[in-house]
């Protein structure tokens, strides 16, 4: 029997039992959908993590004041008072692998412009911060070194704050109130999105001179953090070691005692992000495998029922000249058609659900062509694998007994 006749035959046989055929395909649909989702979401997550890390600033290291409780992955909870401006200067001066460092501190504050009211984070730092973090301006400029020296009340707005306070108006030159102090807006930053580690909105921020925040808002002399640029990506681990030994030295920490600061570098964060992606991928892969297996068993089960129901038909076909191969082909193609239709619906289902996930998590969606190919291949392989036994069973029937079957 030729392929096209066998296909028509298979479509008709499956069409006679639409409900049963669709239920049979369900496992396969879920399995293939999960495969697509695994690849699509995994790929999207990897892309997103990379974008986020790149956005955080190339070759960046983060030095935070230490936490008393030093468990867990948090980048310091700013408990110690030992991290100071002189440390930042010393890091640039004495660590060969460091190219720049921006000291900083911060405080949560209520910000007011006209009738608009917004609770946000005020970051105090120096102008090189914007280079270290690789953060361009949308309009206006940074505050100057002089502004830092004079503790001027000037501010740069993150994109979220700009949107909430000013809407479509240009904030540069306007005056906002932070707590009780008036600040003049000198610049607006481009949006940066959420951060890789904590998923916080990095644009929900106002950046002002370090001294202004220290003296006029916080009343604290010490730093909460220092953002550091290594000279190259490769040197970030060396830079980390140099900073750690320098700070231990400067803070007079004895050998064996714990650090009173935390140093994290971009590579660590990249690892953390990658790990999240891996966990997700593993989970989805398990779901996909189970669903494909269940789908395959479903196909086998229904095909076996179908072979039994159609024993007489098989006998008739053999009596008029069907060979074992003809009968086997007929049932294999039925399994194949189940696989193809189930696979196609599964792909649509997978694309839709990955789109939903990407929308929900704010990840970019990327379903590469190979994902479609891989899952189609899976569906066909599963269908043929589990269709083979029933097909063989059909082909081995004794024609006389098959003809007598009621």
């Amino acid at each position: 029997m030729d392929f096209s006749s066998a296909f028509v035959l298979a479509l008709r046989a499956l069409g006679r039992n639409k409900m049963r055929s669709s239920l049979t395909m369900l496992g396969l649909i879920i399995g293939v959908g999960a495969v697509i989702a695994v690849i699509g979401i995994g790929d999207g997550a990897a892309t997103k993590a990379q974008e986020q890390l790149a956005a955080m600033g190339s070759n960046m290291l983060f030095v935070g004041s230490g936490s008393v409780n030093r468990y867990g992955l948090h980048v310091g909870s700013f408990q110690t008072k030992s991290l100071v401006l002189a440390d930042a200067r010393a890091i640039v001066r004495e660590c060969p692998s460091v190219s720049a460092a921006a000291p900083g501190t911060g405080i949560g504050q209520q910000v007011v412009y006209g009738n608009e009211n917004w609770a946000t984070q005020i970051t105090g730092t120096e102008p090189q911060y914007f280079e270290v973090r690789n953060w361009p301006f949308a309009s206006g400029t940074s505050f100057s070194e002089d502004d830092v020296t004079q503790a001027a009340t000037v501010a740069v707005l993150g994109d979220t704050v700009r949107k909430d306070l000013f809407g479509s108006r240009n904030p540069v030159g306007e005056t906002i109130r932070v707590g009780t102090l008036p600040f003049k807006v000198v610049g607006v930053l481009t949006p940066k999105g959420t951060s890789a580690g904590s998923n916080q909105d990095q644009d929900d921020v106002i950046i002002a001179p370090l001294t202004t925040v220290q003296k006029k808002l916080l009343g604290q002399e010490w730093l909460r953090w220092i953002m550091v640029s290594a000279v190259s990506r490769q040197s970030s681990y060396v830079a980390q070691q140099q900073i750690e030994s320098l700070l231990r030295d400067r803070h007079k920490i004895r050998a064996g005692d714990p650090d009173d600061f935390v140093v994290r570098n971009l590579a660590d964060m990249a690892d953390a992000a990658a790990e999240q992606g891996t966990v997700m991928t593993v989970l989805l892969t398990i779901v996909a495998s189970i669903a494909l297996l269940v789908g395959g068993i479903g196909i086998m089960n229904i095909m076996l029922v179908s072979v039994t129901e159609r024993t007489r038909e098989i006998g008739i076909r053999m009596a008029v000249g069907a060979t074992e191969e003809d009968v086997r082909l007929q049932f294999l193609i039925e399994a194949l058609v189940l696989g193809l239709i189930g696979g196609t619906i599964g792909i649509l289902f997978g694309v839709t659900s990955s789109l939903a996930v990407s929308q929900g998590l704010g990840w970019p969606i990327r379903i590469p062509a190979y994902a479609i190919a891989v899952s189609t291949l899976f569906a066909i392989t599963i269908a043929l694998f589990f269709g083979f036994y029933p097909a063989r069973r059909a082909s081995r029937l004794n024609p006389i007994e098959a003809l007598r079957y009621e």
Partner: protein
Amino acid sequence: MATVNSVTTTNPVETDGRGVPLVEVHDLRKTYQLGETEVHALRGVSVSIHAGDFVAIMGASGSGKSTFMNILGCLDKPTSGRYLLEGVDVSRLTKKELARIRNQKIGFVFQGFNLLGRTTALENTELPMLYSKTNKNDRDRRAREALAQVGLADRADHFPSQLSGGQQQRVAIARALVNQPRILLADEPTGNLDSRTSVEVMEIFQRLNLTGLTIILVTHEPDIAQFAKREIVFRDGQIRRDDVVKVPHMASEVLKTMPTIRD
């Protein structure tokens, strides 16, 4: 050419000068194993049937008629004995070759019609051609021709459930004919039919036999056997009688004397 004495002496049709018999069986035996007991369905059957013959096989139920037909039809293999089809020893052939013989040389008609349900008369008739590499156009044309031969040209698109028993059996005959076989094997083809319809089927068989088709027919009705040219009687797995039907009845004549039941 080997001949079997007992058969040739009682069978004047089987004279020399007719070449190799179409069907020739020697000491055919078939034993079924049913647990401990052995069932001897055939106990040494020898017979020759030449092209153009029309044989009716009679005999009590269980005498081995169907077993014999299934072996002739290459659906089953004998336990021992030889079966030569057109001089070829069938017992040596592979399953695939047997399927090819069923497809090309043999047409089978069953008591229970054995049509595919939810499949039109035309498609049922096309079925053997699905397994003989015939293209769609030829399939359609030849299936329609075969249906016309059995008087069902206008029923091509009917499903079996929309046809009477006689019509269904005629579709089955069309299917058996469609690949132009050498032999038509019919195992109690009229067993499920009323008497007029039975004679109608025999009329078709006689017409086909006139064109040269060899027919072997199993029946337990003596009236039906009278339409054949030769009558073989089975008993206990052996041939007990093998006679020429002196003056075969003409189904077309008999039909004229019968009351019309349908239209």
